[in-house]
């Protein structure tokens, strides 16, 4: 009884911050602009060393734990692999309810049975599932409100992305780019589960863009959308990155630029119609998905305010684009790369260097297939005006093979291995969007799969691959505090208030760790 009572007290304390969104973490990236930044400032450079673990929640699965939590009014909602949802009380870490999804056992899945998080809107929680459904759950009980098939999992479609709420719609992306699917971004009515629109990232027969694919190779063109994008309400535009063309490592059968793979697409939020696109890696043969979080920032550009989108790409180039028009403003290599000429052309197009495509004997190229960065979420601090990016420095050896498309089967036409005899390295880089160069970097022994969070307290939170939670000074990159969590990290940190106290949370190994000041 006593426990129940103190729990309800805690929840009541939590609801004091209701409507006061700074204390909540309501979307994948914390805000629509993709900043993964919080105005919370209890944890500062001066006191970060007093952080201590608050509670740890262990999952009972062995798959990678990639969830980025959602927090509202004292309740945290996480997805667990493969496609489950758990609600936790943020003060105690105690479970309130669980949704367990029974999945078919004949699902073709690429890279682990993972999920990166849920979305919240009104009284509903939204989950994209491995069997390519979109499910709405009651936020208070976990009951299924509606459950719709977005695509056919038997054809290789899955959903691992955290949905994005745009007005009254739930935006859900696709995965399955290793199975020759046709990528899409789809919008569903949050109340009814009715599809509002769907944008196919790969054109259909007769549509513009098919001329960038040899023959009918566009039919298996992939271009999936497996990392949550951003939204600008004033421009009524959704920004989302698209993945590799299929098959991954042999482009012979799909000569051409392969639109709209490896691009940033800007869509009208009401209709899903494309306003503009920018392709980062034309005719990709290294699996360089442009599925990073687009960061929307308003910066001074050559003396005038400009609405831009910042994009630290897997292909090792850092881009600044005008987000109203898609105009290319800046592009610079920010991690070692050997696939393209060091300078982009006037329109920001990369030029492939000779002898960089996969071959039967193997071709060594930087970066390796996992890229210069990947799904690790970046962070943008409006305070420092720096864009914090988790980077990887690793070479790969790429082999090309042959694959013909078969529904639901792997469609890779090649493979890669890490460059033998070389240890990969990682670093968090504080990119200055005005110059495309790093103001500081925090070098790491191995490339980390953790995302980055910055706050008004002047600190940056992230984690090393080996599982150290780290806190850095946002202006200098100096290490302020660390805590060994003892498991590899594949997830992004978030921060919120619980009972009025600032808490930071991140998944490591098979547990979710939370930290607060002692």
């Amino acid at each position, binding site marked *: 009884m006593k426990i129940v009572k103190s729990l309800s007290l805690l929840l009541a304390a939590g609801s004091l911050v209701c409507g006061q969104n700074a204390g909540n973490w309501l979307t994948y990236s914390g805000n629509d602009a993709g900043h993964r930044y919080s105005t919370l400032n209890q944890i500062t450079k001066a006191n970060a060393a007093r952080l201590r673990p608050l509670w740890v929640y262990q999952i009972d699965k062995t798959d990678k734990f990639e969830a980025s939590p959602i927090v509202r009014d004292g309740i945290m909602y996480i997805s667990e692999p493969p496609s489950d949802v758990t609600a936790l009380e943020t003060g105690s870490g105690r479970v309130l309810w*669980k949704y*367990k999804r*029974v999945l078919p*056992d004949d699902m*073709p899945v*690429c*890279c682990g049975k993972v999920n990166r998080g849920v979305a919240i809107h009104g009284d509903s929680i939204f989950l994209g599932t491995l069997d390519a459904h979109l499910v709405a759950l009651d936020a208070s009980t976990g009951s299924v409100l509606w459950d719709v098939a977005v695509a056919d999992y038997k054809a290789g479609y899955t959903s691992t992305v955290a949905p994005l709420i745009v007005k009254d719609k739930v935006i859900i992306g696709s995965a399955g780019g*290793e199975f020759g699917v046709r990528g899409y971004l789809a919008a569903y009515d949050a109340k009814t589960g009715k599809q509002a629109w769907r944008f196919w990232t790969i054109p259909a027969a007769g549509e513009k863009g098919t001329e960038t694919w040899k023959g009918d190779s566009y039919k298996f063109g992939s271009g999936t959308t497996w990392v949550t994008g951003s939204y600008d309400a004033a421009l009524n535009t959704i920004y989302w990155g698209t993945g590799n063309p299929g098959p991954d490592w042999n482009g012979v059968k799909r000569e051409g630029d392969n639109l709209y793979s490896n691009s940033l697409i800007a869509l009208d939020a009401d209709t899903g119609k494309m306003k503009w696109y920018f392709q980062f890696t034309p005719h990709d043969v290294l699996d360089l998905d442009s599925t990073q979080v687009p960061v929307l920032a308003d910066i001074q550009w050559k003396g005038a305010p400009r609405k831009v989108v910042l994009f630290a790409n897997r292909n090792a180039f850092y881009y600044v684009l005008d987000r109203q028009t898609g105009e290319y403003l800046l592009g610079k290599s920010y991690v070692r790369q050997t696939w393209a000429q060091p300078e982009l052309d006037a329109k920001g197009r990369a030029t492939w260097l000779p002898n960089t495509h996969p071959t039967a004997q193997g071709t060594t190229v930087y970066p390796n297939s996992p890229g210069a960065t990947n799904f690790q979420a970046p962070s943008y601090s409006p305070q420092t005006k720096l864009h914090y990016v988790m980077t990887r420095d690793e070479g790969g050896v790429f082999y090309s*093979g042959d694959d013909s498309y078969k529904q639901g*089967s*792997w469609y*890779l036409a090649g*493979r890669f*291995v890490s460059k033998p*005899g070389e*240890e990969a390295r990682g670093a968090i880089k504080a990119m200055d969007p005005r110059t495309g160069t790093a103001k500081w970097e925090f*070098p*790491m*022994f*191995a490339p980390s799969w953790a995302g980055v969070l910055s706050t008004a307290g002047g600190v940056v939170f992230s984690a*090393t691959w*080996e599982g*150290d939670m780290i806190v850095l000074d946002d202006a200098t990159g100096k290490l302020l505090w*660390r805590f060994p969590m003892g498991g590899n990290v594949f997830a992004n940190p978030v921060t919120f208030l619980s009972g009025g106290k600032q808490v930071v949370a991140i998944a490591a190994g098979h547990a979710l760790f939370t930290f607060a000041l002692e």
Partner: protein
Amino acid sequence: MWKHALLLLSLAPAWAQLPTDAASIQAGKKAYEWHCAFCHGAGSDGFAANLVSPRLIYAPTDSSLVNIIRTGISGTGMPPALGMSETEIKQVAAYVRSLGRTAPQKVAGDATRGEALYNGKGGCTGCHMIGGSGGRMGPDLSDIGIRRAPASLRTSIVNADSVVVPGWAQVNAELSGGGKLSGVRLNEDTFSIQIRDDGGKIHSLAKSGITKLEKNAAKSTMPSYEGKLSGAEIDDIVAYLFSLRGGL
């Protein structure tokens, strides 16, 4: 929730049935050449586990074989399958079992003479353990006859630097208080490194206390025996090592 738990149980994969027909094994061979040969060798003579063995350390049953092909062996160099369907995984497993039914690779030397050389002239016992006795400066060789094929064992002895076993990188650290430490790197992260020195003592050092750290993953502390042992002597030692199967 109970209902779901029961359902999950009933969905658990049945005991793995490997195909036995020649066409499937042939398909498995083809997939093996693409997915496995660059580590295990086309005829299983690569640097990774020797699969020409009726019994495998990690795969006592067909189910465990299918499982390690599907998910890899965590913490080792054996990766999970990427780009293989369940059917292909079973075909490869069937091919691996067919390798296990073939006669073990032929070795030229004599195992009894090899054992004597190993314990005597070769001076191997000081660094390696077999069956619980020997030194700690190199990997335990009790089941080396399954873990490595004869051709790759020979290469290791002739030129130790040619394949350095992961986890046995040699490191030299210069410490900020003066002093040096060298040994084998057991682990490393952004902030610390763990080293076993030549006496077998384990040290954990904060990187902030190290002024210079030399690592050479491509350099072995094991001497190369080219010129120190005759070709026939090396053949004998290989025959001895190949007979070490950890009781399997």
